[in-house]
């Protein structure tokens, strides 16, 4: 029996991308059936599928002690390739196919306002929380604030400023919490915050900034909104990395002193 599993496993490992396609197909299929049967269409099937994905990622992390969720299980490594940045970005760009350019340009200004507001609000609130928890030097506050922007901005800012590895790890965790929350909560709050048209999706992407959170959250809300949110979100991390170790750090240092 053990030998049998070894044979099966070796095929799964060698064809890990196909294993991933099959597994994700099963997850998505079950989710749509569940959405239809139990939630009578009130909850989007894709929202359930993304939630199942996150739960499996947690299980994978606990089982393997790794940092890539389910993809750390050897025969499921293809999940990491399928859901990695390369194919994710390819699919995001593909969603823009058929979108008219003027729809982006018409709301360009609010998108820029949202981006700037989103970056500074995240840094500010993150730094305040850090201060409340006893991290009272400007370097740590800026780094944790950066993590509250995205889990890339945090470590980039922290490394540039020479933050301790404990603080950098916290900033990554804060960014992960944000991204997971945006994925889960967006479909729930969408109607309250008027997230039902290209304009608000553009603003949403600029305010949230986490590409994975926005990609997952909008997919679970309304697939048609994805290109708009993704468009602004893609500028967020770059702007965050730009202003974090400079403007934000100088501002915070002038407030807290050290």
């Amino acid at each position, binding site marked *: 029996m053990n030998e049998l599993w070894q044979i099966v496993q070796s095929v799964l490992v060698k064809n890990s991308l196909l294993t991933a396609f099959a597994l994700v197909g099963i997850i998505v299929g079950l989710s749509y059936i569940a959405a239809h049967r139990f939630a009578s269409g009130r909850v989007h099937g894709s929202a359930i599928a993304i939630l199942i994905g996150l739960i499996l990622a947690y299980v994978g992390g606990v089982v393997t002690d790794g940092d890539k969720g389910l993809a750390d299980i050897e025969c499921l490594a293809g999940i990491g390739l399928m859901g990695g940045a390369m194919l994710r970005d*390819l699919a995001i760009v593909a969603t823009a196919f058929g979108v008219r350019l003027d729809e982006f340009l018409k709301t360009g200004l609010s998108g820029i306002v949202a981006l700037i507001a989103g970056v500074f609000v995240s840094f500010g609130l993150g730094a305040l929380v850090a201060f409340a928890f006893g991290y009272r030097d400007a370097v740590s506050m800026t780094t944790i604030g950066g993590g509250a922007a995205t889990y890339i901005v945090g470590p980039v800012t922290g490394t540039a400023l020479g933050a301790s590895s404990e603080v950098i790890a916290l900033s990554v965790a804060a960014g992960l919490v944000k991204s997971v929350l945006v994925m889960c909560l967006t479909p729930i709050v969408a109607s309250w915050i008027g997230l039902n048209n290209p304009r608000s999706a553009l603003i949403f992407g600029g305010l949230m900034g986490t590409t994975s959170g926005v990609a997952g959250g909008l997919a679970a809300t309304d697939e048609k909104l994805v290109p708009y949110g993704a468009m602004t979100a893609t500028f967020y991390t770059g702007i965050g990395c730009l202003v974090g170790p400079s403007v934000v750090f100088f501002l915070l240092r002038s407030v807290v002193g050290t």
Partner: protein
Amino acid sequence: MVIYGTALLSLCLITGLILGRLIGWALGIDANVGGVGIAMLLLILAAGRLQDMGLLARPTQNGVLFWSSIYIPIVVAMAASQNVRAAVSGGAVAVVAGIIVVIASFALVPLISHMGGTQRESMPSAQPAPSGDEHE
């Protein structure tokens, strides 16, 4: 041929990512500034131009549409490969910071939407209950 569409899509993404890196490099930061966004603009412009020239045959379009229709499964795989354990066990600061920022950012969406937004065109969102086939 289908490959023309996928090649066009890949070309747009690679060009966008290179430009995004170059912008980051010019600004002195080690990050991609808007690469995916630039790629989306390139695709919209290129597809529009090719359409006008009559060079966007149905199979070519399918080479792009396949990737846009497989978007949700890819996002599910992305969710399954996130470091959720680290997010859950990251310590109180991380969890509190994440929660507060997300709530504040959600609250800002309607605020900025209403700012100078007189012509709010709404999407035809009155779609029937999503069926399993919808995204396939």
